[in-house]
């Protein structure tokens, strides 16, 4: 079954506190509730 996956992004420069969010997220076409 297609799974929701996230890309791993390399950590930005040391001064950054937060890790960058991944820019692409995959979603299964069957993976949302409220559909037959």
């Amino acid at each position: 079954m297609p799974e929701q996956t996230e890309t791993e992004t390399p950590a930005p420069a040391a001064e950054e506190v937060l890790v960058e969010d991944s820019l692409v997220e995959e979603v299964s076409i069957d993976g949302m509730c409220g559909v037959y």
Partner: protein
Amino acid sequence: MTAVLPPRAPAQRPTGGKLIDQFEYGLDAPICLTWELTYACNLACAHCLSSSGRRDPRELSTAEAEGVIDELQRMQVFYVNVGGGEPTVRPDFWHLLDYAIGHDVGVKFSTNGVKLNKARAAQLARTDYVDVQISLDGATAEVNDRVRGTGSYATAITALENLAEAGMKDFKVSVVVTRENAGQLDAFKALTDSFGAQLRITRLRPSGRGADVWDELHPTMAQQKDLYQWLLANGDGVLTGDSFFHLSAFGEALPGLNLCGAGRVVCLIDPVGDVYACPFAIHENFLAGNVRSPGGFQTVWQQSELFADLRNPQTGGACTKCQHFDSCRGGCMAAKFFTGLPLDGPDPECVQGYGESALAARDLELVTPKSHIDHSHKGPVRGQPTLLGMPSIPPAKICDESPLAGLDLR
């Protein structure tokens, strides 16, 4: 109409972050949606979520349905799930199927298989961008027909045989998990594998006629736990439509968005053009508008008050304090509503047991909400399900379109 929803903080879409955080605030168009083409149906399943059976005289015409498809194309809704009732009993079904595909809208349709003879199966096998889903609620006729009616298992199997023989790819068998079939998961998998089909299992909601059989049919807590374990062990290649996201509170999250999509990423268009938050919420309180109104479906999706409320994620409520809230997100809105539970509280099948407590705490005098939208067959029906103890009248022939065919009611 909005009084049923708990008070929410003003909407403020976050930047970046997780996708589902974005989805909670809604999208300019649904990702996909369910479209019930007709309330007419040759069956009378005991748990029908749309209380189908009789055609509604106000059904969208062929031209109106084409207009909806045109809108979906403009909105770039890439994919629509067509159901009903039984969508193939609409004479223009095959025309609308081709029309949608020809207008960049892929179609999956959900059917009991009644019309899928060899010719139609061959037609589907050579058509791109169409997906078929056969409904089945028992791995044996004995279990299935109790809920869906005598002969319905045979009809489904014949359709599966025809599709397989015609070389159809990727077709699905969709099962609603009940107390009676929860022990048949391996058998369902074997059955679907034997046809080269994909198994899809979904959650029973107390919606439509499902409300009448909920107490008797919804899985027990033990069965839910087993189901969860089964999905973890066997879930590769088994679809769920993300309908078991409430089970994610058991531990490891199941694949899917794990989020109620109603009014945010999905919705329902019903046979008379009414737009509801989701197919499991066909009730005045979840009616957002009608596609026949000026501005059509797009205006309803983008501007209805109900959807604006749903896209304003709740910040309070009993569930948010639970450590499992991030996994289950409070469960299914429709399940809560139709069992008379508050929408900001636990799901009736909350795996931590809070739902059972909430159900027990309900006022004994409580009358649970009932939809006025009911197209159920009125009188006795050939091959009707025996679940509720009604005697079964055998079908005249398996493929009769009308359950009243040849029935002498004198």
